[in-house]
């Protein structure tokens, strides 16, 4: 297992000690720290993934502090534990916004926790920076979405599977909740547009780990490719059962939208060789920026075998987008950050990212990776440039007709 348990208390103590130093020597109001929140699960079932994201944010902040902070002031992080429970997330979000009076919180991992904190950010007008790729179907003035939306994972993926892999019959499989079902909606549209068909879609409970029946169904369906929106630990038992039942990624590959370096490391790379994932970022992207990012991250978490992946990269770069917005406006209020972050670009480890001026989602470069025996992917296809995020693509949103506008959601389009 590559993930290493981090002694979180110890590190945050070091972080706050490092941050306390400037405050000891402060002479003027101008060097007073800027407070931001980091809201992730430090305990509970989701903590394995969310601690990594918290590390991404903390690393970005420590780098920003090392180079002089924001507006010449150090950044101080108030870390709160969402405890893998949406209600706790909502309580801690209130605490951050009302008691600590932070205008910006980096955090949340699941859509459930994001939905739970959303009313607080909207009512109190604070900003949430949210890094996870998600199902779209949301348009909030108080959230900066730095992860991928369905069109950025599927727009190139489905046509590529049909044309380059020559696949005609899709079997769609997912966990039984909103993300996989929304992904399936977009997929079905794109599959039909590409001139292929989907033979079935099947959903399993979150955390389900008995895959014998589903893999048997795939086997007998005559499908020549599997589109997987399965999340979490189910992914691992799925890939293992797939191979154990004699299926092969060479003939019927699993093409996934969630399976990342993390899951591959946990299942054993031999079960994934030859399968695909679509993400804007892969650890294997071979640029000096990314190599340096991986090295710094491994040093930061003190684990020479730590892996990086899409949401982690987004958790990291969103802090810099926030910094640029604050510095552009010279103002910490939520409305200033919202205004300042529009159109803001940053050279992230995986390439250029830009916050869309209309819908506050992020322009990202869709890429397709083919998993190899070392647990890393080879990028086999990529867009030449970042593409516009369309959170309502499942409902027919296009670049020409936006549902999510600067004024908020144009709901007339949804009902019509």
């Amino acid at each position, binding site marked *: *297992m590559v*993930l*290493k*348990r981090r*002694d979180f208390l*110890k590190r945050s103590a070091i972080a706050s000690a490092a941050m306390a130093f400037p405050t000891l020597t402060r002479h003027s109001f101008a060097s007073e720290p800027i407070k931001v929140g980091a809201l992730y699960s430090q305990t509970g*079932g989701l*903590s*394995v993934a969310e601690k990594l994201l918290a590390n991404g944010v903390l690393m970005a902040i420590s780098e920003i502090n090392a180079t002089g902070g924001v507006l010449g002031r150090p950044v101080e992080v108030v870390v709160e534990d969402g405890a893998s429970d949406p209600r706790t997330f909502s309580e801690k979000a209130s605490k951050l916004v009302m008691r600590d009076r932070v205008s910006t919180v980096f955090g949340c991992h699941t859509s459930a926790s994001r939905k739970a904190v959303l009313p607080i950010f909207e009512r109190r007008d604070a900003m949430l920076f949210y890094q996870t790729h998600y199902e779209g179907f949301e348009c909030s003035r108080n959230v900066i979405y730095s992860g991928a939306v369905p069109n950025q994972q599927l727009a190139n993926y489905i046509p590529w599977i049909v044309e380059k892999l020559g696949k005609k019959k899709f079997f769609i499989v997912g966990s*039984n909740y909103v993300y996989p079902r929304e992904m399936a909606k977009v997929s079905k549209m794109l599959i039909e547009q590409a001139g292929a068909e989907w033979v079935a879609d*099947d*959903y*399993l*409970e979150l*955390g*389900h*780990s*008995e895959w*014998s*029946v*589903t893999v*048997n*169904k795939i086997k007998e369906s005559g499908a020549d490719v599997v589109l997987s929106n399965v999340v979490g*630990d*189910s992914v*691992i*038992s799925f890939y*293992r*059962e797939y*191979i*154990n*039942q*004699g299926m092969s990624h060479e003939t019927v590959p699993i093409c996934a939208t969630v399976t990342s370096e993390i899951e591959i490391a*946990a*299942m*054993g790379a031999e079960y994934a060789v030859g399968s695909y994932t679509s993400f804007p970022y892969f650890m294997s992207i071979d640029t000096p920026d990314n190599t340096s990012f991986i090295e710094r991250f491994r040093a930061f978490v003190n684990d020479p075998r730590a892996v990086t992946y899409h949401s982690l990269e987004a958790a990291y770069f969103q802090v810099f987008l926030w910094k640029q917005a604050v510095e552009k406006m010279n103002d910490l209020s939520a409305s200033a950050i919202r205004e300042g972050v529009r159109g803001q670009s940053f050279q992230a480890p995986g390439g250029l990212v830009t916050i869309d001026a209309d819908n506050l989602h992020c322009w990202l470069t869709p890429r397709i990776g083919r998993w190899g025996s070392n647990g890393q992917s080879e990028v086999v296809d990529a867009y030449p440039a970042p593409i516009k995020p369309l959170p309502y693509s499942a409902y027919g949103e296009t670049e020409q007709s936006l549902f999510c506008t600067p004024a908020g959601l144009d709901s007339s389009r949804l009902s019509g």
Partner: protein
Amino acid sequence: MLNILFIGLSLSSILLLIALGLAITYGAMGVINMAHGEMVMVGAYVAVLSGIWLDANLLVAIPLAFVVTALLGLAIERVVVRKLYGRMLDTLLATWGVALLIQQAVRLEFGLSFFGVHVEGLGPGLQHVTTPAFLQGTFRLAGVELNAYRTFIILVTAVLATATWWLVYRTAAGMQVRAIIRNPNMAAASGIDVKRVNSMTFAFGSGLAGIAGVLISGIRTVFPDMGPPLVVDGFMVVVTGGVGSLYGTLLSSALLGEINALVAIGTNDILARAVMFAVVILVILIKPNGLFSFKER
């Protein structure tokens, strides 16, 4: 069709693996052992750790896991359960507490993580076990393509069930156990050392759970929270089969596994689970003591 029956059989054998240990502890001793799922989890971790540290494969881990979990079971019986015989609900609470302790111990690497020491293989993350090469993939038998690892699970389960049956119905110790199941006080009056037999029974049941853990680790993810859903499955089988009856446990696991497979093939896994629970409820309504319970005298 044979294909579906095979999948059903493999689901049944996993249910039986988990239920076998429970059937003995719950049936013989009236202890609702909520830590049974954690025994399975410990067994799975024995497989993970022996893979990492001893470079041993799954087959070696089976006896190892039996010994480790049997000793753990013995310790739990001596420290906690022994004081609570005859108080079924109290054993439920106490063993649930034990379950939480075991989970946290694995998650926190027995507290070592507080000192910055990391034991590879433990911790809150997901672990996996590599199955030996000859158990990977499929083979053909009578025109049906069979999954090698699942066949292996079915065979081991069959061996364990037979061994358990032989111990309980064909040995002197087994007769003592059966006497205690029927009437602990009368058994004690006849000179059976109830305490000793009970702790041995508990240890044996725990050991079976450990083996179940090793076998499950080859197809499922190993992590500290894997226990609770397993124990639910185990109790479902034991209650349907009839407390204290090995035949009942065997038949109810076969029944529930096949129902699960048939419904899941026709519809989906979520509905299959619902149907399975509906069947359990129906059985308990019609035969409150399960399918094969003793006639009370």
